[in-house]
């Protein structure tokens, strides 16, 4: 099967001049797949970290502490209203430049946090800021009577969140969350700017060596649309699985 595909694209290159090198050239393919893997890795870690950040943020914002609330507000507004690319540059060049370098065991020096690491940190913080707002909207949509009923049953704040508020709020905010996570997947392309070997970077390497900008560009677009489609599909399934009959948003 794989050899058939390779043969097909090789012939396409010879007869039509359409050079889809990723499908028949082993080196280009491995580079592309490595890029795909890096992108997926950044996506998954950032999604999980941003969800955790969103939950933590909304927890602090809802607590009595005035200072904590101010910090969360500042964090959300800052990351929502500044360009993600500049945030990434800020983290990678400015903050990363100040951190000490560590010995890498081969006699050389390597930065404490790699480019991939900074990309994950920056994207998590960026998407996390949006998640705080999304979770807040979801929590506010939980009927106050439900919360009061749980309070009168003697739930502590943590129990209230875990057993009552979050399960309901989560279902309410899933569509918005979905949008944000799709956005996060698209944002990972920015890591190109700091030289992280993700999908866009791998593709640009391939097209600058194989001179097939047009073909690679289309492969790249389709790959990203597929990546997003996978995420949307998974989230859609999840949404359906979590639906409570009779409880619509």
């Amino acid at each position: 099967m794989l050899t058939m595909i390779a043969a097909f694209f090789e012939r396409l290159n010879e007869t039509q001049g359409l050079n889809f090198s990723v499908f028949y050239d082993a080196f280009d393919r491995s580079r592309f797949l490595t890029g795909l893997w890096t992108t997926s890795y950044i996506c998954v870690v950032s999604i999980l970290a941003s969800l955790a950040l969103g939950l933590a943020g909304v927890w602090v914002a809802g607590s009595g502490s005035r200072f904590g609330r101010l910090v969360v507000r500042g964090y959300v507004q800052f990351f929502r209203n500044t360009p993600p690319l500049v945030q990434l540059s800020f983290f990678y060049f400015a903050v990363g430049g100040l951190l000490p370098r560590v010995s890498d065991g081969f006699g050389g020096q390597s930065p404490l946090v790699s480019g991939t690491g900074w990309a994950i940190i920056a994207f998590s913080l960026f998407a996390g800021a949006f998640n705080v707002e999304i979770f807040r909207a979801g929590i506010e949509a939980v009927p106050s009577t439900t919360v009061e009923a749980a309070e009168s049953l003697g739930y502590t704040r943590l129990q209230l969140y875990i057993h009552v508020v979050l399960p309901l709020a989560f279902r309410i905010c899933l569509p918005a969350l979905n949008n944000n996570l799709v956005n996060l997947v698209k944002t990972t392309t920015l890591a190109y700017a700091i030289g992280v070997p993700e999908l866009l970077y791998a593709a640009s390497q391939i097209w600058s060596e194989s001179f097939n900008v047009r073909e690679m560009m289309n492969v790249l677009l389709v790959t990203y649309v597929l990546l997003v489609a996978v995420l949307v599909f998974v989230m859609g399934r999840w949404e359906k699985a979590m639906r409570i009959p009779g409880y619509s948003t």
Partner: protein
Amino acid sequence: MRTGSTDLAVLLPYRAPAPIAPSGMAAPVLLGGGTLAAFAILFGASLALAQVTARPAGESAVTVLLRWAPLIFQGFLFNILISFLSMALGTIVGLLVGIAQVSLASALRKSAWGLTQFFRNAPWLVLLFYAMFLLPFEFRIFGLTIAFPAWVKAIIGLALPVAANVSEIVRGGIRSIPAGQWESAEALAFTRRQTMWMIILPQAFKRMIPPWMNLYAILTMATTLISVVGIQDGLTITRAALVAESRPELMIPMYLLLLLMFFAYCYPIARATLALERRFNVKA
């Protein structure tokens, strides 16, 4: 009887209560001021740190920053210009595609839907690359040569996702108008075109404004992407300035300065969007 001169609650004019924010996150107007102040403190602290850690021979950090600030600001203004032009182009195209998305002709509707979904789900940077590399640098039409400099291509590249998003906004806006409006217009013998232009769109327009403004803020922030494809914008100039000065301790204040410019521009837009949303009472 004047309604003002009664104390019967039913006869008093209704005043909507201020929205209550249980988690204490929404509403306050002071919020922006606070963030801006925190920002300024951070900026000042980083500047002071740069001043302290600077090598004794060099100029003071403030002097260097003041020298570059006007240039960075010019680059930032270029970002804003690009954002205006892409937004204009994207809105026009998106409006047409969006209306095509609710057209009765199924082929037109489906292709408009496909186009919208495709460009909405592709990363902005990839679309920008697409436009930069695949558009010709000049266009020949009837012996007339239209040049396509890089910045025009960048505008087109940014306008693609904008158009797709506007198309979704338009579709959503039109869909949000109750079906009764369509039906009553039909009963009054309006043609479909008349219904659309004279009844549906004027009502839907109001609801489209908040998400449209939100999109504009996103676009403004996305304009920094053009620095990746080699156009001189605010971020490029900031980077060039840092290279020229080669003083690592200045990095944090310089980048913060640029972030501050964007924040000062985008934050009011975000607030206005929120205010409009609340006024029109539509969910984002």
